[in-house]
């Protein structure tokens, strides 16, 4: 066991640090400045372009696709160093690099790779994801949006939800049903779609947090050229899996650190002392902190596996499952120990507002990117080798399902 970096890793970190010091500051968003989303995307594209020019766009993306072809550990190192600056990075960049590129790289034709890979790495194309539907969340293969072949094109109709930043994206990755006569996960096909195509209508979803980061996207007779199809007709499920596997490895743990909650308890007066004097608060926060420490070490174990070329698989879901529960419980506890004031803090109390936000956002974390219950199933089945769920829908043609 060795926490020191290898000489090669240390050299990469030094190089990255130097490059970032020279380039990142002029792309930073000053503390306290809220950009509107148009401006944020402009700035995000510019920083992505700078990364590309510096050779740091898509660190693990193969050189054949225009990436750096580096290791997973290098990506982690670069991300750690990059996080020291407040840079414009968001789903508008992340979806392209983390989802569109892998699926196009793996399932796309050389022409498709040529059309999208470099532009995405340069920040010239931003992407959104068009997978989920009102009736297809955890059960993604249950989706109903459909495409019908029409000569060299496909005509798409239906509705997608939870598409982050769809309204500011150039392109979307889209999965739709092209055959309802076969079982549900067999009749899907994967496309890339120009978001300016006529017939696409985007409506922001009002969230319980008050924000509208997510959209509903409606397709009314939207024409997509067959050239935009990724993989074969009916092979959409495999493409989705490529996308979702990429998603799973990068989750959990950025927000809601327990140490800040310990400090919050200590900043909350109680009697002649603070709320941290309470034995029950101390025990609960210590247990959460111990689990948070464990998650950090566990992620280090997973990275070690990745650096050896092993696939952690469903193990990665454990970090997210534990985080989601801890995040909701600990932020809920913090509000509770604060007392009534937590429900209507004074105007300058940004810390309490953040914890309120954490408590609300934790509901998303428990659902998105693998709901608690889905992750438990995956861990039981893939890590422990227990039987899959009884499936009523597996061999039934989609059109015959209720």
């Amino acid at each position: 066991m060795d926490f020191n970096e290898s000489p090669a890793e240390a050299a990469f970190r030094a190089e990255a640090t130097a490059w970032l010091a020279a380039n990142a500051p002029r792309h930073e968003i000053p503390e306290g400045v809220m950009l509107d989303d148009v401006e944020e995307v402009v700035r995000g594209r510019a920083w992505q372009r700078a990364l590309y020019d510096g050779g740091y766009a898509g660190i693990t993306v193969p050189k054949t696709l225009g990436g750096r072809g580096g290791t997973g550990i290098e990506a982690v190192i670069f991300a750690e160093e990059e996080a020291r600056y407040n840079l414009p990075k968001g789903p508008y960049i992340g979806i392209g690099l983390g989802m569109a590129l892998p699926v196009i790289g793996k399932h796309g034709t050389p022409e498709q790779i040529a059309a999208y890979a470099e532009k995405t790495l340069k920040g010239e194309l931003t992407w959104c994801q068009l997978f989920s539907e009102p009736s297809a969340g955890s059960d993604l293969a249950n989706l109903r949006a459909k495409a019908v072949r029409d000569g060299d094109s496909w005509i798409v109709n239906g509705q997608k939800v939870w598409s982050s930043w769809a309204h500011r994206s150039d392109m979307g990755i889209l999965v739709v049903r092209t055959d309802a006569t076969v079982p549900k996960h067999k009749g899907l096909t994967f496309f890339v779609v120009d978001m300016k195509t006529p017939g696409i209508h985007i409506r922001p979803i009002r969230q319980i947090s008050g924000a509208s980061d997510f959209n509903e996207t409606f397709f009314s007779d939207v024409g997509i050229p067959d050239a935009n199809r990724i993989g074969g007709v009916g092979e959409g499920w495999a493409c989705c899996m490529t996308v979702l596997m990429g998603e799973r490895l990068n989750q959990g743990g950025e927000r809601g650190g327990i140490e800040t909650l310990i400090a919050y308890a200590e900043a909350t007066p109680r009697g002649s002392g603070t709320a941290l004097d309470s034995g029950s608060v101390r025990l609960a926060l210590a247990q959460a902190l111990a689990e948070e420490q464990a998650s950090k070490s566990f992620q280090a174990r997973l990275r070690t596996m990745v650096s050896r070329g092993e696939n952690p698989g469903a193990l990665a879901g454990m970090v997210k499952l534990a985080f989601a529960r801890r995040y909701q419980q600990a932020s809920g506890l913090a509000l509770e120990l604060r007392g009534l004031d937590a429900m209507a803090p004074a105007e300058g109390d940004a810390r309490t507002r953040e914890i309120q936000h954490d408590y609300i956002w934790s509901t998303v974390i428990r659902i998105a990117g693998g709901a608690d219950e889905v992750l438990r199933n995956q861990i039981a089945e893939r890590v422990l080798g227990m039987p899959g769920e009884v499936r009523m829908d597996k061999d039934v043609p989609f059109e015959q399902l209720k």
Partner: protein
Amino acid sequence: MNFDLSDEQKMLAEQARGLLAERVPFDRLRQLIDAHAEWDEPLWRELGSMGFLGANIPEEHGGLGLSELDLAMISQELGRANAAIPFASSIVLAADAIRLAGSDAQKAEWLPKLATGEVVGCFAYAEGPGDLLGSRVRFDQGKLTGTKHPVADAGVATIAVVQVGEALALARLSQPAVTRTRLDSFDQLRPHFRLQFTGAEAELLPRSGQIATLFDRAAAQAAFEAVGAAEACLHMARDYAMERQMFGRPLAGYQAIKHKLADLAVAVEMARSNAFYAGWAAADAHDELPAAAAAARLTAISAFEMGARENLQVHGGIGYTFEANCHFYYRRERTHAVALGNREHWAERLIANTPGSQTSKMSRGAA
């Protein structure tokens, strides 16, 4: 022995539930939030005109003279509907404080108006983060000085009952020496305010030492409110799971969902059982109230917490949208968990009132 609500109480609850279902559909709550409203005024007026608000106020003071357990039927249904009215502030706290600690003149002046809803009262205890009861606001020679915050429902209130040390003072809010500032409330349907008193005129409620009893009685009502709300969450989650198909069968058929909701159902029934007992103790067995109220509060917080969280979880992504109805309870629940004292507070009170423990003996000796 008959450990159940009376037929009259069941009818009262049914009546309240029916009315609220009609007047407070969830879209009404969305409207109120969008309007940044301080309350659902028409609902308040209607409940007042029907006598619901004065349910447990003595008949001599214009109320119906019913018991605390009768009042609890209304608390329960307001919790279920997640209604946006100052019932807990005005009836459960302010009116009850005046009833417990006020002079005959004060009772005669305020209770009739509180009973009809014509006057709204609020109850001010917190002074910022931390302790349940504030310690810095002063009452001196008829004047109140200091700041209470957050105070629920102060915007629509005519009077405030203000905790000052062990005493309670009553102040009109319309005077210039009182400043009300609306704060940004986590629970969008229960507005909170800062009340600044700069030498505001006020009068003491003469009977001191009533604060603990006031909170015990309020805890019993809050427990019913939480039972109503937690049960609403349970039913909402169950109904959604029955409807929603997942991998070719109803979500409700998955054991993870069944067991989650079974656990919630147990928590709701436990909370209900303790609420019954606390409501009965508030009405008929005052000696048993401290322990009964504490137990009721602890199980109510657990049940509502589980209900609010797992209802949203069962709904999945849709539960995170403003169009869905989970969020009303998700926000209200945290408010419930901290108003009147959190779990730790009530755990202390329960231990101190448990027969047999030295702590209990000491506390009772000191009391």
